[in-house]
């Protein structure tokens, strides 16, 4: 599977009439594996939501290389999901078949087999019938990744996918992300931990409401760029309405 490129052309996304990200231009190349990092309030989540069409773009253009947003798999920050909902791991994972089965299509044996394989792949074999409320944080993240496997999308966007997850689970899920990259999918992940980004992500978009740097990780992480990002952050902190920017985590 070959993922397309995602191009941004002078993209501005406003939130409560204040620009949350502005004049973003650049390309997530086809089949690339890119981390998006930056200080709190830098617009990282906003950017993913705008790509998904969950937030309107006030100006500029986002080009998904011929795909529509429904063909993109997106994992939002976990707290946005109702963990107390009475549903099993298997049913949660089967929701990933939506792009093929839709609202009314049958979930046939082939889909169930795929779901079972996805559950096994994330290390949750034996938990298929467990209610999601009974899972630990790490197991829950594994279940969400199994749903991403089910979606089988050429583009995958992950927003803080390893927040509060133990090291072992993070390692195993990251192996999965690498396999998506090797299969040629375009993968973008919002992350905080810079040493983790260095180790695992060949490309980096350093964001501070505008693009600070976008390219190979080592180049993007130069001390000058880090300093620029910090200076930009200090600038918003002194703005009177800066609290408005802190929505959705980043």
């Amino acid at each position, binding site marked *: 599977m070959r993922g397309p490129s995602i191009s941004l052309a002078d993209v501005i996304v406003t939130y409560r009439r204040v620009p949350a990200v502005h004049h973003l231009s650049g390309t997530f190349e086809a089949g690339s594996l890119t981390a998006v990092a930056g200080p709190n309030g830098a617009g990282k989540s906003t950017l993913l939501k705008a790509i*998904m069409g*969950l937030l309107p773009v006030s100006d500029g253009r986002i080009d998904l290389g011929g795909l529509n*947003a*429904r063909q*993109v*798999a*997106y994992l*939002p920050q976990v707290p*946005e*999901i*109702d*963990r107390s*909902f*009475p*549903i*099993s791991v298997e*049913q*949660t994972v089967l*929701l990933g078949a*939506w*792009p093929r089965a*839709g*609202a*009314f299509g049958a979930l046939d044996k082939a889909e169930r087999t795929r779901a079972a394989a996805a559950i096994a792949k994330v290390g949750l074999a034996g938990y298929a019938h467990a*209610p999601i*409320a*009974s899972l*630990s*944080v790490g197991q829950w993240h594994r279940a969400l990744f199994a749903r991403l496997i089910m*979606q089988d999308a050429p583009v995958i966007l992950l927003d803080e996918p390893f927040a509060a997850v133990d090291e072992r689970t993070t390692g195993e899920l990251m192996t999965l992300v690498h396999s998506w990259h090797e299969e040629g999918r375009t993968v973008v992940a919002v992350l905080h931990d810079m040493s983790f980004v260095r180790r695992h992500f060949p490309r980096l978009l350093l964001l501070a409401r505008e693009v600070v740097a976008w390219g190979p990780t080592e180049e993007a992480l130069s001390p000058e760029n880090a300093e620029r990002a910090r200076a930009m952050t200090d600038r918003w902190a002194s703005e009177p309405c800066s609290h408005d920017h802190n929505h959705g985590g980043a």
Partner: protein
Amino acid sequence: MYDLIIAPFADYEFMRRALVTCLALAVGAGPLGVFLVLRRMSLMGDAIGHAVLPGVAVGFMVSGLSLGAMTIGGVVAGLTVALLAGLTARATGMKEDASLAGFYLTSLALGVMLVSLRGSPIDLLHILFGSILAVDDQGLLFVVGVASASTLIMSVIFRPLVVECFDPVFARTVGANGGWAHAIFLGLVVLNLVAAFQALGTLMAVGLMMLPALAARFWSEDVSHIAIVATGLGLLSSFAGLLVSYHFEIASGPAIVLTAAALYLTSIVAGSRSGLLARWLRRPHFHEPHEAKR
């Protein structure tokens, strides 16, 4: 045993009629109640139950105790209040439950005033508390029709409702726009409450919808099983409630709802999934693996 359980229904036609009406109401309302609970809209049913009153009253004023007129009035009033509450919440940023409270209280006062202008206190009692033992053919057919339609429609919109309720962001990103499913669902809630008002009255109708749904949550961790258990508990409440009403000569509406309430209280204690006993038995032990749960 025969005298206790079978005879009341074998001997009296009005009891058989009441039984079929209640069973149909339980089948239609059970799954709706479950989704109201899951959407954290448990009080919504109550509010809409009150909101249908002015519509019923207008129907009553136009043509007396006519089922058709009161039903149309009830459906129109219920949908109007639900719609106005939703629109106000969206337009002003107010929480939907708060907005609904404002509208249904207005609606309720309006309804009581309209009934008192024209009818006698007996009529008002009839509308507020219903009289299941006086359901006629027309009423029975209406209730059974609504229950059948609800069951059919709920089975069709089940998946969109689940995904919209459980993970609305995922629903939007895969294009499973659940807005229309939610609208159909609310329409069904109104329709079921209106269908129930003749039998149980507007105030009691909500009981048969919500209590079995709340009770069922203690017995399963799977949404489709919960819907089935809720329906079963509703059926049991209807059957047992009518018998209680017959043997102890108490009003049938409250008897049915109180039976549902008894099942709810039992479930809180004995529910196999999250009842108090089950929780106590499953309390953490030292030998269990120590893993962060949330």
